[in-house]
């Protein structure tokens, strides 16, 4: 069936099973490969996107559920929060990098609603995003650095 989704400000008409997780629509149908598959069960955060600004696990969200809403992915973050990306690069956060799209989308959502997150706020907002390489300390620093620079 045909479903309309708005991803990064662009409307797409898709002919897919309405139960298809948004993750696979992004990756397999829209070639937006920045969003990653890590667990498929909402446990790792690698697939995090924002839906109307809320960080959401795209592996558990059906495409039907986002019809009529705004999806934004890592590919659009450079337009939304370029300073956050810069902080990520300057802190040399990423190791293998596979988790980082999800980390960034969670971090961006946190900063959009909390201009001065404490360590507890960061722990809470980022607990759903696993980084097997263990870049957590640098993620914290990059989030704080961005928040401070914005003040």
């Amino acid at each position, binding site marked *: 069936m045909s479903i309309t989704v708005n991803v990064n400000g662009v409307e797409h008409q898709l002919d897919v099973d309405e139960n298809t997780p948004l993750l696979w629509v992004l990756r397999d149908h829209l070639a937006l490969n920045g969003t990653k598959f890590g667990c*498929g069960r909402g*446990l790792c955060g690698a697939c995090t996107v924002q839906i109307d600004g809320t960080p959401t696990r795209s592996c558990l969200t059906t495409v039907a559920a986002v019809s009529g809403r705004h999806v934004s992915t890592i590919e659009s973050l450079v337009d939304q929060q370029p300073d956050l990306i810069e902080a990520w690069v300057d802190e040399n956060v990423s190791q293998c990098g596979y988790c980082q799209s999800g980390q960034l989308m969670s971090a961006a959502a946190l900063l959009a609603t909390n201009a001065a997150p404490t360590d507890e706020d960061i722990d*809470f907002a980022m607990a759903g995003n696993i980084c*097997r390489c263990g870049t957590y300390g640098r993620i914290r620093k990059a989030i704080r650095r961005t928040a401070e620079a914005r003040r």
Partner: protein
Amino acid sequence: MNSVHLSNLSRRNFLVSSGVLVVGSYAYTSGFNPVYANSTRTLSPSVYVAIGTNGVVTVTCHRSEMGQGIKTAVAQVVCDELEADWEKVVVAQAEGDAKYGDQNTDGSRSIKNFFMPLRNAGAAAREMLVQAAADSWGVDAAECEARDHAVHHAASSRRAAFGELAHAASELAVPDSPTLKSRETWNHIGKSRIHVDAKNVATGKAVYGADVTLPNMAIAVMVHAPVLGSSPLNVKIPESAKKNARFIGIETIDATPGPIGFNPVGSVAVIAADTFTGIKVAEELEIDWSDSPNQDFDSDSFQQDLREAVKSPGNVWHGVGDASTVLDGAEEKIEAVYETPFLSHAPMEPPSAIANVVGDTVEVLAPVQDPQTTRNTIVSAKNFALKNVKVTPTLLGGAFGRKSKPDFVLEAVELSRRLKRPIRVQWRRENDLQYDYFHAPSVQRYEATLGENGMPTAWRQRTAFPSIMSTVAAPNMVEPANWELDMGFTNTPYRCENQSIEAAGLKAGVRIGWLRSVCNIFHAFGANVFVDELAEQAGMDPIDYRLAMWDGMDVVQGALPSEPGHEFKIERLRNVLQKVRENSDWDRKIADGHALGVAVHHSFLSYVASVLEVDRSDSNYKVTNAHVVLDCGTYVNSDTCIAQMEGAVVFGLSAAQRAKLTFKDGTIQENNFDGYLIARMPDAPSISVELIDSDHLPAGVGEPGVPPVAPALSNAIYKAGGGRRRSLPLI
């Protein structure tokens, strides 16, 4: 370090195309070895530096990038000798080819083995550029100098950019033994550099295995046999799938008979036009599997077998004096048993591979740690001619040892061969945990008697674990190998006049492989907790106790001879321990509610000491701070070394705190991150790292930060009143 020459490089290695200078270099490399050890070394060309007429320097990285920053480090080394401008350097990924020398990116040895070849390549290119400039100016090359991506002639104030010189330089002979820069003049080596892929990663543009799509490609979602050794007998495809136009079909793969090696296991592949269709059908298949000799494998009873194994003498690897007589006749001895469970690599990117078989050729794109072994395995398993097999690594979304085993690539090759179209194999997390090459579970038993000064008078240590060799080499290679034991056991720095070091091996019913820092994980755990126990018995501070044990010691000898220039020196071990004592303010009166634990370990030729601080008021003994000191000899990217230590603390904490895998009836019980518990943001302490400035030879960085973490945590928990915890996971 052996000297390396460029003289025997053939003319053909100088690819002069559109004015590009390409320099090849030679490296000493080792043949296949699962982890690291001294083995026969052969000469082969290893790295290429190309300089375009536009001045862009392309460094080809022949090692795989999995987060350890090797692409950046390789470029730093080459650029330093070349006197290149960092902003004008791009790094290309090499495909698997013996011409590059060893490409097996594990064992923390990329920089260790290739530091000199890379420097030579950069220096040779620099000398050729200088010569080209001198020739064009009619001056002596000795009067010219390369700096800032150009050659300068001070006397005449002339300057020519590298790009302008590239073509002329490419016509020149390669210097036999180029002059290397002196350490004081290094301008990239030892400095901090942002990873070359950092921006691509942070914008979602970095390309991993599953991000590549080829025309007409189909997806294969795998359903693997619940038990190792089983093959699919009958498969029932649901009616709904048959009606789904995006479902293409299924293919069955039988378990490979004989040694396990890197061969595919029994599976049913669901072929589909997209991943979700594949996953959906995979979840609905009804499959009958054949019986397997492994179907009774049970991790609890295997652990019990390991416990039994250390109760009686094992193979004696080191024996001095008469430990048995002293220990057996002692009125009082200290005895402790330490245990660790099965662990999984669980890189964030589950295995994925693309293969495109066309006629008798195959092209592979996949996140592999060793493209050459992958290539050779395809050649031998699938009967392709070597020249017809091309394997190019993508970025690896984490690996930690998992992706040096190309079983998942062989699946893709087989399926593409059958279906005559490009195939991308996609494992789900469940496949990844089920069919890892697991980190071996283990048991260590330590016994010692102490003299009046508190120092050991007799010491017996036994280890038991399933050897990696029983999986990757031959099923009957059950005994631990010397290189496995030289990971913190036979090369223990804790010595005594009456000492027996013994080992036993047992065969497990699942695949065993190397995981970041390998056997060091359990050997560092047993040794460091036991020494803390002895210190307590002796009424001494744990750091003082270690220092006292090392009094008068110089070099530690393991089962294998040390590599030249890489002796295990007590002085360096002592140094990192003393430094971490200062950095953690070990001797301060620790604030109420906190406690410190220490561990120190030598692995991958590097020395690491770690102190962890735990919060006593937290029932889970949350780690609030970690202090790490690393001596890895000469280092290349200082920030990468620090990042690797930070990452190692978190990786080590996963194993120390909660990670554990169990098997019943040959089948794994933990299927995803709800069962296999990995450290998350709230678990991550604040970490400080000191990197020792050293002019020793470069040594390992990726792995040696891991081993001290679990014992330091156990020791801290004990100090915090949580009792002696001798079994991982600790929480």
